[in-house]
């Protein structure tokens, strides 16, 4: 039975710049008990689509049909829609912290959801809440139902959200990036929980995500969106293994999860603005297999024997078309150089705290004795989940934060206790690239002055000479030097990260610390940035410290890896050895959680992490 049927949906959202065409002629069906995946990069319209189904887009101009159990949601009165929301259609959002009310116990929030739609007593509702919490894997639900959201860890909160969503047995559950905000090991648990619940209750799930691999390993059907268009739709397995659209193929090939080393085959360019009217194929400017007709007419819908449908002029599946493969850039020769140690960290500890109001000693140990060494011209990867102290370590090595004890030396010189002049000198050796390409650039300054900042601060190169240097840097990182006078807001995430890298390169440092440089970027852009990082290392002989929570990314760039947990190094070793013969149980768990095949088997962990309360 078809639960949801979307027919020729067009969504236009009026903004100050004109109408954003967030969905164009999108159609799909979701069967009862099915897991339907919607994948796409940011700005592809996937989240807008799920909001349109929930009726949460008040200002938008929507045409087409959204049939839910035979009724068109677009013509339903607000009151009827309200009756459906939460009861027949439920939603789980990305951030479990901000979707739970911090002031009420989770029991109160779940019973409120139940009693809004059903006339039952408070005691009965509480009993139902306890039942459902037990089912989603909360231990001791009778007690924990009276706890507040902050007493749960991130993964547990997401379980509570799931409990709240399924307690009324909705026919359809929309999960908008349900695991993006969570750590890898927890992600796997949440996905398998969603899967279990769907099999048990027969709820259809629409899962919106940017992670194509995750999706295709569990979804019955998957839909790939790009610039508001449905590019490809078909059985999950088929979309993953033999993608029909060049875009899907490009996305899959550019994620660094293969055994591959060296440059990744990336999709060139940027996604188009959704303000534009599309006359031809939206993907044509970035497509390796683009033909003349792609740029002139809208592509037709092609049906393939395995049930895949693709919006493309290619007659064959892209996976079987040689031209559709995105090309990997050539790998230039690395500079030969001596492998002396450039960064040496010995037994660094950091403790926050002191005395609390009542004289108790409350010390929070963030780093508990970390040591590492980085040879010249190499990349050392640091992996760990959020809160393990890896970003703190990066700031200590960069000299931005003094450690409580221990020593950091860069090229033989300690970074601790420098006077002002020495400290400024040190800045020329070590630089940082930050995680957030939106937060790390001053929004009120022009790109030219942002990249030129190191020159201004260090008082080197003035006037025209500085401008030329900045233009050279922009060229090196693949930015158009013509954009010298633009503001950061006029660039996309990937371009901003390039600006950040150009700024780090300005003073010719020998060491660059990357703090999660690609975690905020889409897959196709991530590949471009990783390639750039790799190319710069080979051309300039840089040494990198590469910090990430994403094992696949770290594995791709690093020659050596250390694994951190709770402020300690639990394992270190050569990349390949670490991947094939992990010694520490935590490393094994991380590896297992990041493996799509593992997720597919839907297995749980013998001893699940983070079952407890966060401290």
């Amino acid at each position, binding site marked *: 039975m078809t639960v949801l049927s979307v027919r020729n949906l067009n969504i236009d959202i009026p903004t100050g710049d004109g109408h954003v065409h967030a969905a164009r002629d999108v159609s799909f069906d979701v069967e009862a008990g099915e897991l339907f995946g919607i994948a796409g990069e940011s700005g592809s319209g996937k989240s807008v689509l799920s909001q349109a189904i929930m009726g949460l887009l008040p200002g938008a101009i929507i045409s087409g049909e959204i049939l839910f159990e035979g009724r068109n949601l677009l013509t339903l009165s607000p009151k009827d829609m309200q009756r459906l929301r939460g009861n027949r259609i439920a939603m789980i959002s990305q951030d479990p912290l901000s979707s739970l009310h911090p002031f009420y116990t989770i029991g109160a929030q779940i019973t409120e959801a139940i009693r809004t739609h059903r006339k039952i007593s408070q005691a009965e509702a509480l009993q139902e809440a306890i039942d459902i919490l037990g089912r989603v894997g909360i231990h001791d639900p009778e007690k924990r139902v009276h706890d507040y959201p902050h007493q749960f860890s991130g993964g547990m909160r997401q379980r509570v959200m799931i409990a709240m969503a399924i307690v009324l047995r909705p026919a359809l559950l929309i999960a908008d990036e349900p695991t993006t905000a969570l750590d890898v090991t927890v992600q796997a648990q949440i996905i398998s929980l969603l899967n279990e619940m769907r099999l048990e209750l027969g709820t259809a799930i629409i899962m919106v995500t940017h992670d194509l691999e995750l999706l295709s390993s569990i979804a019955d059907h998957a839909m790939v969106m790009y610039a508001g268009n449905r590019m490809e739709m078909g059985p999950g397995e088929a979309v993953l293994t033999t993608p029909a659209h060049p875009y899907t193929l490009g996305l899959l090939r550019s994620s660094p999860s293969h055994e591959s080393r060296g440059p990744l085959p990336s999709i060139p360019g940027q996604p188009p603005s959704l303000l534009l009217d599309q006359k031809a194929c939206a993907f044509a400017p970035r497509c390796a297999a683009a033909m003349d007709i792609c740029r002139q007419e809208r592509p037709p819908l092609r049906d393939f024997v395995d049930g895949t449908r693709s919006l493309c002029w290619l007659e064959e599946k892209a996976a079987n078309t040689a031209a559709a493969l995105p090309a990997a850039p050539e790998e230039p020769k690395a500079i030969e150089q001596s492998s002396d140690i450039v960064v040496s960290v010995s037994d660094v500890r950091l403790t926050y705290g002191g005395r609390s109001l009542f004289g108790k000693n409350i010390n929070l140990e963030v780093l508990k004795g970390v040591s590492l060494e980085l040879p010249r011209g190499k990349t050392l990867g640091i992996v760990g989940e959020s809160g393990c102290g890896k970003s703190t370590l990066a700031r200590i090595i960069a000299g931005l934060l003094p450690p409580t004890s221990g020593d950091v030396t860069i090229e033989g010189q300690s970074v601790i206790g420098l006077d002002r002049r020495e400290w400024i000198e040190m800045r020329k050796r070590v630089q*940082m690239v930050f995680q957030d390409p939106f937060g790390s650039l*001053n929004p009120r300054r022009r790109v030219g002055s942002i990249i030129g*900042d*190191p020159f201004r601060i260090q008082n080197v190169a003035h006037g025209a000479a500085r401008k030329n240097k900045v233009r050279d840097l922009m060229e090196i990182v693949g930015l158009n030097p013509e954009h010298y006078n633009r503001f950061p807001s006029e660039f996309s995430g990937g371009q901003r990260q390039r600006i950040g890298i150009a700024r780090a390169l300005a003073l010719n440092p020998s060491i660059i610390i990357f703090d999660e440089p690609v975690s905020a970027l889409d897959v196709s852009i991530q590949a471009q940035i990783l390639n750039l990082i790799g190319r710069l290392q080979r051309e300039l002989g840089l040494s990198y410290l590469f910090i990430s929570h994403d094992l696949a990314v770290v594995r791709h760039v690093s020659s050596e890896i250390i694994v951190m947990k709770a402020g300690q190094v639990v394992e270190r070793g050569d990349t390949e050895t670490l991947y094939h013969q992990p010694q520490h149980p935590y490393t094994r768990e991380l590896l297992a959680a990041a493996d799509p095949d593992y997720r597919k088997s839907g297995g749980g962990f013998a001893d699940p992490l983070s079952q407890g309360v966060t401290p």
Partner: protein
Amino acid sequence: MSTEIKQRGSLELTMRRLISDRAGMVSMLFIIALVAVAVGADAIAALTGHSATAQFLNTGLTPTGLPVPPNGEFLFGTDQLGRDVLVRLAHGARISLAIGVVASLLAAIIGVTVGLVAGYFGGWIDVVLGRLMDLVMSIPVLLCMLSLVAVFGPSVSLSLTVIVFFSWTTMGRVIRGQVLSLREREFVVASRSMGAGHLSIMFTDILPNLGAPIIIYTTMMVPTSIIFEATLSFLGLGIVPPAPSWGGMLAEAANNSIYMFAWWLVLFPGLALLFTTLSFNILGDALRDALDPASMRHRAPKKKKKSVRAAS
């Protein structure tokens, strides 16, 4: 239709939002008109042939010595001394605007500096400056003013000083809060990691990001300062008569309850004061909506208006 989408700069977007705000535009027009009147106060005096302090004992007063109501010669009537209310109002606008704007600007400068320093350095500096702001806020304004006037005698510069002294704290607190969150942003850490000093970070990284709150709160401070000045003049502590000021005119109207008979003596200065403060407040709101659209309360977009901007 061309397919090229022009990306609008933030200034252009702000202007578009501002212009689409009807109340804000009306306020702005009123303020512009008021500035014109204030600047052209002498011209008005020349046109009517009445100077601000001149008494017209023959035409401006009834045979019984009462003020005349609005007529052809005196558009807004005359006061109890036979002076032209319109001309005095225009001259009063000068004082009100000058004190309002100058006091707001000075208070803004002090507030921004203190807020920036307190928020950026934190620690004991923040504690000291924070307590200083608390201290200023806890002083009873009128009491303090009364004693100051008793010692120094009323004057424009004294009014200005008092207004500035009591109004910079609001700005200081707002800026301090903003700086506290800005200094934790990654671009500040990035600047630091390149070796930037404190002054460089404060002026090139943090200050440009405070543009919106500074503009908004300075605009909002203008009406407060104008009211403040009017209050002082009303109590006879501000502008020294016979120089006209709105507060002083209201005070004169209240003397001997002359307003019971001559309603125009209260109505026109009162309306001038009301519309001026209202306009600055509405303009401040409009500026906030335009500069910081995220804070704008949700407005249902008009569905009828489907005009596509083809030209862009």
